[in-house]
């Protein structure tokens, strides 16, 4: 119960002020399109030079926690996910906002984030040694199958046509192969010098989601359609509480999937939200409501992406191996104070380690309180006229994608992908599967090649990829996932007419 003993340290005036600063700052940075959690944390590192180790980590931990949740704000209100983790939130969250339920969607999302987040941190506190073994269990063959599992989600994600969903995913997978390949160092598909570094996920994410939104606003023209873009109905916080806790299935699936997948180094954070969304859609008795503004979609996605925060630190704190880019930055923050993470971290530096974890726990609650406050302001954001909104989002997209790597090339890539995506969307393709392909492509490829190199040196390809309980478990889930999608597709075909599909499209745009 050491974590309770050190809880008091979080509430000393300086520490608590830093916690507040990290939380509020993280929410704002997270809600700004183009600023990923990794960047936000990296940008804070220089500030921590001046602080005590304990204080520096409180700041970083709070910022990490709240940037992940802050990304939901722009995902819901503008359909622009703040980070890859928030992609799944756009699917139902933005549709809810279009239906006038923006405030409700934000409240639900922050509450679900807090529930998932607290659960994740508790896992970190109580089960770290067990989880560390699990984090190591995933070798190249397992990560390959996991990426394939992600790909199977593509076809059913946010698209009325499975073929077009898969095609969008393939385009994403192909875009991911542009540039130097990570292992051999060969240059592939470089048609323009802006592409020589490959397509960075963050600028691509900004372009694919933000630019189509900008153009859609422009197509409304100079109509005097009243100042409001979308209405926002008031929604009492109490009702949001009841809403979240009455949908226990989505909440628990989201939290569980987020905690498990978040643990896997290198993959987890980016796809936890999407996999949780897909799973709760498949298990839900109201699966047809998903994608049309169903609160369960938001709950599953947001509880998953915050549940992943705690477990994603397990490999870092126990094995000194950063499991995600953000964790890598946190490692830098620890090392700079001469603190080596490892099994004896909690013995050697209990005041630092436990206060850090406690601050993430308290940070989740603060994040939720501020988030609910922000949700109250949603109506104001929605009242911004579309002309102003289009201009602001365009400028933010340009600045955001530039600042990832200080590169004009990234801005060109962002704008080109965004323009293409607008036209693709008009013809039934969607951005979410495309981004998923872009994220999963490198994971699938690198692990396939590494796996086959190891396999060729040892047991051979077949045995390497097809033996072991974990491989078979993943393969089984892949097969079930594909089978379920095919079954749903066949079942729906009987009563889906062209008019239904068109009606759904209209409601989405």
């Amino acid at each position, binding site marked *: 119960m050491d974590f309770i003993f050190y809880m008091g340290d979080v509430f000393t005036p300086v520490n608590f002020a830093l916690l507040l600063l990290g939380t509020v700052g993280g929410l704002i940075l997270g809600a700004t399109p183009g600023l990923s959690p990794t960047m936000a944390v990296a940008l804070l590192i220089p500030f921590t030079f001046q602080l005590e180790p304990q204080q520096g980590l409180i700041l970083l931990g709070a910022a990490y926690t709240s940037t992940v949740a802050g990304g939901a704000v722009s995902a819901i209100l503008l359909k622009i996910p703040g980070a890859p983790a928030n992609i799944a939130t756009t699917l139902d969250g933005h549709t809810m906002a279009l239906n006038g339920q923006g405030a409700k969607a934000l409240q639900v999302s922050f509450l679900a984030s807090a529930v998932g987040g607290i659960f994740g941190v508790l896992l970190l506190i109580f089960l770290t040694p067990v989880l560390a073994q699990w984090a190591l269990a995933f070798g190249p063959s397992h990560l390959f199958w996991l990426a394939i599992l992600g790909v199977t989600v593509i076809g059913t994600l946010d698209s009325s046509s499975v073929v077009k969903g898969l095609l969008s995913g393939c385009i994403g997978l192909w875009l991911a192969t542009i540039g130097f390949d990570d292992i051999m160092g060969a240059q592939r598909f470089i048609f323009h010098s802006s592409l020589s570094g490959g397509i960075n996920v963050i600028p691509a994410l900004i372009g694919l989601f933000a630019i189509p939104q900008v153009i859609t606003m422009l197509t409304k023209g100079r109509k005097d359609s009243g100042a409001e873009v979308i209405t926002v109905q008031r929604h009492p916080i109490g009702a949001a509480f009841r809403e979240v806790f009455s949908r226990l299935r989505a909440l628990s699936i989201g939290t569980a999937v987020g905690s498990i997948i978040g643990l896997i180094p290198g993959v987890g954070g980016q796809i936890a939200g999407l996999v949780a969304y897909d799973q709760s859609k498949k298990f839900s008795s109201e699966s047809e409501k998903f994608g049309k503004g169903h609160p369960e979609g938001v709950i599953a996605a947001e509880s998953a992406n915050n549940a992943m925060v705690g477990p994603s630190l397990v490999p870092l704190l126990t094995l000194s191996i950063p499991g995600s880019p953000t964790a890598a930055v946190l490692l830098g923050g620890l*090392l700079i104070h001469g603190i080596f993470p490892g099994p004896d971290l909690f013995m050697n530096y209990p005041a630092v380690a436990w206060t850090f974890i406690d601050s993430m726990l308290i940070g989740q609650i603060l994040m939720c309180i501020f988030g609910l406050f922000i949700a109250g302001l949603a109506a104001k954001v929605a009242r911004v006229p579309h002309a102003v909104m289009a201009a602001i989002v365009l400028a933010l997209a340009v600045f955001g994608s530039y600042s990832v790597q200080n590169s004009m090339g990234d801005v060109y890539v962002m704008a080109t992908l965004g323009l293409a995506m607008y036209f693709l969307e008009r013809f039934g393709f969607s951005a979410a599967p495309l981004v998923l392909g872009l994220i999963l492509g490198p994971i699938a490829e690198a692990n396939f090649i590494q796996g086959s190199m190891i396999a060729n040196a040892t047991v051979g390809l077949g045995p390497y990829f097809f033996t072991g309980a974990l491989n078979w478990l993943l393969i089984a889930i892949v097969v079930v996932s594909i089978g379920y999608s095919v079954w749903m597709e066949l079942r729906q075909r009987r009563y889906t007419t062209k008019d239904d599909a068109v009606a759904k499209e209209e409601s989405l745009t």
Partner: protein
Amino acid sequence: MKKWIAGAAMALTAMSGAAFADGHGDYPERPLLLMVSYGAGGATDFQARIVTMTAGNEDALGMPIAILNRPGAGGRVGWNWFATEAEADGYTLGAYNIPHFIAQSIEGGVEYSTESFEPIANWGADPAVFVVPTDSGFQSMADVVAYATENPGGLTFSGAGLFVGHHIAALQLEQAAGVELAYIPNNAGGAGAMRAVIAGEVLGGVNNLSDAFRAQEAGNVRILGVFDLERNDFLPDVPTMIEQGYDIDNASVNFRGVMVPAGTPQEVIDHLAAIVPTMFENGRVASRMEAGGSPMHIMTRDEVLEMWAARQETLEALLADLDN
């Protein structure tokens, strides 16, 4: 209106600033960038952040240095950008890793070579080491080589990528011991390669001394040998490869330092070359580097130029042998 006035004022300052830069009167008069061709949190990034933290001091450059990460393909993405697109105005610095970029330029397919860059100063030298999981049966390099002799091409071991220091070390080991090994490059860099060792996905690995030292302290790996000419202060008990009977020099030692693109004005290079090494010598930097387990090795511009030329020769010979 205020905005316009402020904008005009800023534009004026910017232009007059440009004029100063031409005359090098007040260089540097705005913050500098240091491009690191590896991801945030990696060893190079981490060390670059520490050694540049005192840049803003009056007795140093007087302006802070911001870190810019351009990771990808073992550093090729960043160095390609640095050689072709970075402006040679003295405000864009780059971090180099030797032997990485020289080996890659010899191998081809990239747009840089030692001619594309001008070194400023070296801050660290991080030798490669051979690690095995703690529960491994291998107790010395002799055990490793014996296994590889029995199973040609069956000894899997991880490293940070192709044509980086770890790969060079692996090639030297193959050559010196006369065995065939299965080098598995990891896409997630040194950290990913270390994970593969700890998880037992591979039988061993080549990794940075600084990272391996931490992992050994944590009880996750055992270090069997150092790919350097002398034992390291951090690991006085670990023998070098030469001591264990393998003729391997320090060609794979990862030298890290600061450079600028070729074409940067000579005055700027001289100014940086005079000041940057003193920045590295700052006591605060040294204590942070020590605490982080990162071996320092400060070299001036002239020493680095010599070292680059020497490495170019060694690596050309080594890689030429491989092609045969």
